[in-house]
């Protein structure tokens, strides 16, 4: 395990120290060591909170900033933050107009958010939630409630964050974040495993010369383990289930290609070349493409593809200015 860490059991706390020192205009500490908040001023607005396990950087803390999330609860590597942490994030994000908690569909997160919401209720903080379920590989469309959230969460934060920033009400922020989630279909492909530092051994295994289509962000098994093929074939294998998931034809879409950590960004662009061909052939119009490491899995090799079906409402929120570690646009 070739890692730049101190005590493997303290990776998250040690990293947070660095994040806080490196990005003082974006991230500020709170009373809870595992909660960070936006360091700038946002004025009165609906608070936007997210949270999740660590190891997905820049998710989740990289989406705290202007026009995005106001606070984040930070969990151990690949493990939900505590209910305490979510509660504190609700508190610091709340400006009396309620809090939108936008997170991904993982059992731990769901339980901890549920407990935190109960506690927040006692403090009269109005918390509503949207749960990202964009991973088409994790359950069929008929069981959307079972799907995991993957890189579509980025879209959810961007849309929900922009809605809150422009002064939308809590219900409206929730509606729009939910709309973003519903408009997203994602799939991942893994080419190698990753190692949780405290664990010291790879989390699962992908044999060299193979890839796992539909892999989850923690190495959850996908649809199929197959021989590693060409980028074009991988692009097709990713496009097929994504295009089949919603009626994208004739629509404009935002495309997000995220690396899982160790795959060079060059290869993500290379992969995208054929994705673009496929979309064109399917009559899907690309409105905007973002490629980079937006939602990773430690040093896993691989990529995720997310399509978000757009309308004017979503487009304007997607294009709204933002400033954070992961997304800065003017």
């Amino acid at each position, binding site marked *: 395990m070739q890692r730049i860490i101190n005590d493997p059991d303290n990776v998250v706390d040690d990293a947070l120290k660095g994040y806080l020192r490196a990005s003082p205009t974006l991230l500020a500490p709170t009373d809870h060591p595992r909660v960070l908040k936006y360091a700038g001023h946002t004025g009165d607005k609906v608070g936007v909170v997210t949270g999740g396990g660590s190891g997905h950087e820049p998710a989740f803390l990289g989406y705290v900033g202007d026009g995005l999330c106001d606070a984040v609860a930070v969990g151990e590597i690949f493990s939900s933050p505590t*209910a305490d*942490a979510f509660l504190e994030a609700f508190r610091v994000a709340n400006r009396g107009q309620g809090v939108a908690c936008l997170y991904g569909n993982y*059992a731990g997160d769901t339980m901890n958010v549920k407990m935190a919401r109960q506690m927040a209720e006692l403090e009269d903080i109005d918390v509503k939630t949207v749960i990202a379920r964009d991973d088409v590989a994790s359950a069929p469309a008929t069981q959307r409630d079972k799907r995991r959230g993957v890189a579509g969460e980025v879209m959810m934060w961007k849309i929900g964050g922009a809605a809150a920033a422009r002064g939308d009400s809590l219900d409206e922020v929730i509606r729009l974040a939910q709309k973003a989630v519903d408009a997203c279909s994602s799939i991942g492909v893994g080419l190698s495993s990753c190692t949780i530092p405290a664990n010291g051994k790879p989390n699962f295994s992908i044999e060299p010369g193979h890839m796992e289509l539909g892999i989850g962000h923690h190495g959850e098994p996908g649809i199929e383990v197959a021989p590693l093929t060409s980028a074009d074939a991988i692009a097709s294998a990713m496009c097929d289930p994504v295009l089949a998931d919603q009626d994208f034809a004739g629509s404009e879409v935002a495309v997000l290609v995220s690396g899982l950590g160790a795959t060079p960004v060059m290869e993500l662009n290379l992969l995208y070349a054929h994705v673009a061909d496929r979309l064109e052939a399917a009559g899907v119009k690309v409105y905007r493409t973002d490629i980079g490491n937006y939602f990773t899995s430690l040093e896993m090799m691989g990529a995720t593809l997310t399509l978000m079906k757009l309308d004017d409402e979503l487009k304007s929120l997607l294009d709204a200015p933002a400033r954070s570690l992961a997304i800065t646009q003017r």
Partner: protein
Amino acid sequence: MQFLDATHGKEILEELVEVIVENRNYLSEVDGAIGDGDHGINMAKGFRLCGESIAGQSLSLSKALGTLATTLMGSIGGSMGPLYGSLFMGMAKAVKDKDAIDAKDFGDMLAEGRQSLEQISDASVGDKCLLDTLVPAIDGYRHALDAGEDFPQALQALRHGAQRGCDSTLELEAKIGRAARLGERSRGHLDAGAVSCCLLLTRLADSTERRLEKAAA
């Protein structure tokens, strides 16, 4: 009638901490096969923290279990924080204000723990999770008492039930948690939560039995 002295909760709890910390790597290994390989890390972190926070104190069993519950909920997060947190919180509530615990109290304590856990999770026996250990263990204990066996014999039944339940997860297909994604492929591996639950219940039974013996001696 045999009683467990419930004023030495800290000492009992330290044994639970010990068994989890000792099995940190083993639990992660079990979780690694069909989960994400961090169960030992998560559990050891919470239990060790709890161990540190109770060190040097004198605590009733209820207080000790309550401290464990809030430490787990407040420190480990994941699924285990809320799940084990709820379990131990339920147990703590059940023995609140008790200085001595008889066989029936002990059974009630386990039952309340289970109830509390089931409020947060809608998993059930057969889903391949810690309930597969917990439920047969509690059932075994209850049946033993109903059949007129004594406290130590019921504890033995608890251990048997836990072990049997834990073993049963080997052949189960996971319906919950990360392993559920594996479907059929999750068979042939133990469930990590079932294993940690078995370790905890077994050690709790051992510790209780030893204390009963000591009290009798």
